[in-house]
């Protein structure tokens, strides 16, 4: 019998798959820009302590509110600190906290969503009601309550942010699981007698993983915005650690005469958010997931 071979394609290693996705992402202009911005910020976060020209907490009353110059590229703030130094350092905390926060959101949101999609029925209903109830609480109020009770340490902020931003992931994971669960390959696995764990691990997760990861990436940028708002309100990073949210908050009164002290952190924060957003979009497109119908909350 003649076998008509369609495509010859070899099985790829995980590394090959990941690099292929990244190449596809970078082949779109928006994806390329997003990835470049994100990579730039990540590298900056790693190297900034070594390349910062000045001490970020060195107060110098004689140098208050200097306009940008060859010496102080972004000028100085109201305490005479170098804005350039503080700007390149100002994303480190936010980036780290929200990165780990997103991982936590992914983990609990993904697992709970898969669980709900899998069991269905009453339990699913009840869990989703509870999740919805939480969704209806303004998150910022709840966050304020938590940090005022437990403090603003990293150990509090990461799980708290992770918790609040995981709700959306529950929904996505649940919907994706619902779609998969009706397929005959799941019925087939059940009929063979595979354990629930094996069905989740082998049959469901590979099919919902992409959707969950994309949602997680999206949540990261919103979490960054949320975290910076907390800092802005004084509940995030504590001074004198440099942080964009805090810097914007401190310098916003000086906007009319020392705009440089505000502009620099704003550019830092918004470019990172845009970068993550574009990357997440390109990520979704590279995986063939259509997110266009969903708007950020």
């Amino acid at each position, binding site marked *: 019998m*003649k076998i008509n071979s369609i495509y010859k394609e070899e099985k790829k290693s995980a590394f090959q798959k990941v690099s292929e996705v990244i190449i596809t992402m970078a082949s779109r202009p928006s994806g390329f820009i997003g990835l470049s911005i994100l990579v730039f910020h990540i590298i900056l976060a790693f190297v900034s302590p070594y390349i910062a020209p000045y001490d970020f907490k060195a107060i110098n009353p004689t140098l208050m509110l200097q306009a940008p110059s060859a010496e102080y590229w972004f000028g100085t703030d109201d305490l005479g600190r170098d804005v350039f130094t503080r700007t390149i350092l100002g994303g480190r905390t936010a980036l780290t906290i929200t990165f780990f926060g997103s991982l936590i959101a992914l983990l609990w949101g993904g697992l709970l969503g898969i669980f709900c999609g899998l069991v269905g029925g009453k339990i699913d209903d009840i869990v989703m009601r509870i999740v919805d109830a939480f969704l209806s609480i303004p998150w910022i109020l709840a966050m304020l309550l938590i940090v005022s009770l437990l403090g603003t340490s990293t150990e509090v902020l990461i799980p708290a942010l992770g918790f609040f931003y995981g709700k959306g992931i529950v929904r996505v994971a649940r919907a994706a699981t619902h779609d998969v669960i009706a397929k005959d390959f799941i019925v087939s696995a*059940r009929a*063979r007698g595979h354990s629930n764990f094996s069905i989740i691990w082998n049959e469901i997760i590979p099919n919902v993983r992409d959707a969950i990861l994309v949602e997680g990436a999206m949540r990261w940028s919103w979490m960054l915005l949320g975290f910076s708002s907390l800092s802005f309100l004084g509940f995030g990073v504590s001074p004198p650690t440099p942080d964009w949210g805090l810097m914007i908050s401190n310098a916003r009164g000086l906007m009319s005469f020392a705009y440089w002290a505000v502009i620099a952190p704003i550019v830092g924060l918004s470019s990172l958010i845009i970068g993550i957003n574009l990357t997440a979009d390109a990520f979704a497109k590279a995986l063939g997931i259509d997110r266009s119908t969903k708007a950020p909350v």
Partner: protein
Amino acid sequence: MSDIIQKVKNLSIGFKSKKGEEILILKNISTKIKKGETVGIVGESGSGKSTLALAMMGYVKHGLYTIGGECEFNSSNLLNMKSKDLEKIRGRKIAMIPQNAGQALTPNLKIGYQIDEALQLHSDLSEKEREKKISELLNKVRLPSPETIALRYPHELSGGQQQRVAVAMALAGTPDLLLLDEPTTGLDVTTQAHVLELLNFIAKDTGTSMVYVSHDLGAIAQVSDRIIVMYSGEIVLEGPSRDILKRPIHPYTHGLLKSIPKLSLAGLPESMPGSQPQPGIIQSGCSFFDRCNFSEDKCKNTSPQLEFLKELNTSVRCFNYEKLLNESQVNQNVNKIKNNSNDKEILNLSEVSISYAKQKLLDQIFNRISDDNPTVQDININIKKGETIALVGESGSGKSTILKSIAGLLKTKDGLIRFDENRNLSSDLKERNPNDLRIIQLIFQNPDESLNPNHTVEEIIAQPLKLYFGLKGEELNKNIIDLLQKVRLGEFYMSRYPRQLSGGEKQRVAVARAFAAKPDIILCDEVTSALDVSVQAAVLNLLQQLKEDFGTTYIFVSHDLAVVRAISDRVAVLYQGRLCEVGPSNDVYKFPSHPYTEVLLGAVLEPDPDIKPKLVAEDIVEEKPPEKGCSFQGRCSRIVGDICKKDIPPWQLTDSGNAIRCHIPIKELQKEQL
């Protein structure tokens, strides 16, 4: 005025691949549609038949674009027309009926309103006239009580009725050309025959030209005056319907007709090797070369051109059509299947009933099922080791439901499932031990759904081997390769994902996975219905071969009576979850028959212009089985009277051991209707 209504000239349509290559879906198509003529376009999935039909109304699907050529309608090219002008033609001059009419109707608007909209859009009638016209149209498509249908919503109609409404809406603009894309695919056998008969009537009555697109030569044979056979984006054969079906002079059509199971033939038809090349595969010679039985060296490198044979009024794309010209008819050889069943019972269903009814709280607490009128009732079947028993019936007759319970996926309400004469199997998975689960395996209808898209072929086949036999490493590998060979797939398929396989190949992988468990019984749920006609016979042959090698028992569910005829030793006919007739295939397909079997047999569409379906009963759909009496009473045209409505009919045995459940005595059932 010329009598040509649509002229397709050198039409090529394609798309750009990710790498920027131009990939052709239609390759230089030219054809003409005459006034009042019905042309059937037949081809397997991916052959470009729908793309061609859509182009005939000036529509090119998103992502595709016209590379060259034109579609001329009333001497203007539809493909470069402004959308405003096109709107005037679509619906009025050219109308389209899609495959899934239910989806094309707006769910929240009444049928009458939707037809009225179509009338307002496509005609200049006054409101009074339109009202009359709506009843007229609904009458024309033979809907019972048109007035009530007009007041219903789409979901309140059956699939066949929705399709009729779609026909009525298409006729609203009194079109000159009607395009139908797989209009009966997905409908039940009986409904399908009725809709085709209606289309024939409408073609004659209104003189509308029709283009009928289908993968099903049986349906095409019933309606077409002329047939166009497409393969891999090209027309390979075009000519008068009767000639094409009786004397196909292209090797593809010839092989196709040989491989379609027929009601009159017991046994498996010859299969055609391979599958249609995917679009974009660069081939120098004839696109059918890989699968052709008549090929020669020349075909490999030179593409044949479409040649018009005047004396036959036929166009053919083949160098060697003369070889086929001399074969006066398609000689269909079948391999008689060996009945290697022995008398040992392997599975016995006794008094099985299954209910989908939502259970009341009290019943839930006591873990019992109460339902006076369950979906499936009274199933008694004794299945012998090594036989193939088929369950047939229309959709919703409970075939899959019964399989689910046998597989342990759905709890029965009552009854026993006994394996190997002495072991009772629970219908609840949790109560089955691993060996109970291993001995029964399932193969599903659609391999796209039954194979995990994220697993390689290797991983898919490894699952049962690891689960049941704990195989690892070298031994696991050896077993996988062995199984792949058994389903005629090479070792290199191991690393492929389902999306890289053709439909037939995917189903082979599913078969390999089922056999990996070394089961005693395999449940086949419509395993060939999602496959292309040309690969169906190959999968059936494979299943038969494996069964002979391993002594497996098949429970084979299908709505296709010709396929069932080809592969099964015994047949059980189901209506509304109740058995009507059980017996050896040879007898079930002969008179005397249960009235329902008669309906089913009469509705089978054969690719032969001389065999017309017999429409014995109405094609209404019943939602629920009747509470009392015979399950078929609602549609039976032989109904004897009150006794059918009151008493469950008795089983009667024919001389050959065929059991029929009807109040009419066997002697009288012997007489054929019509």
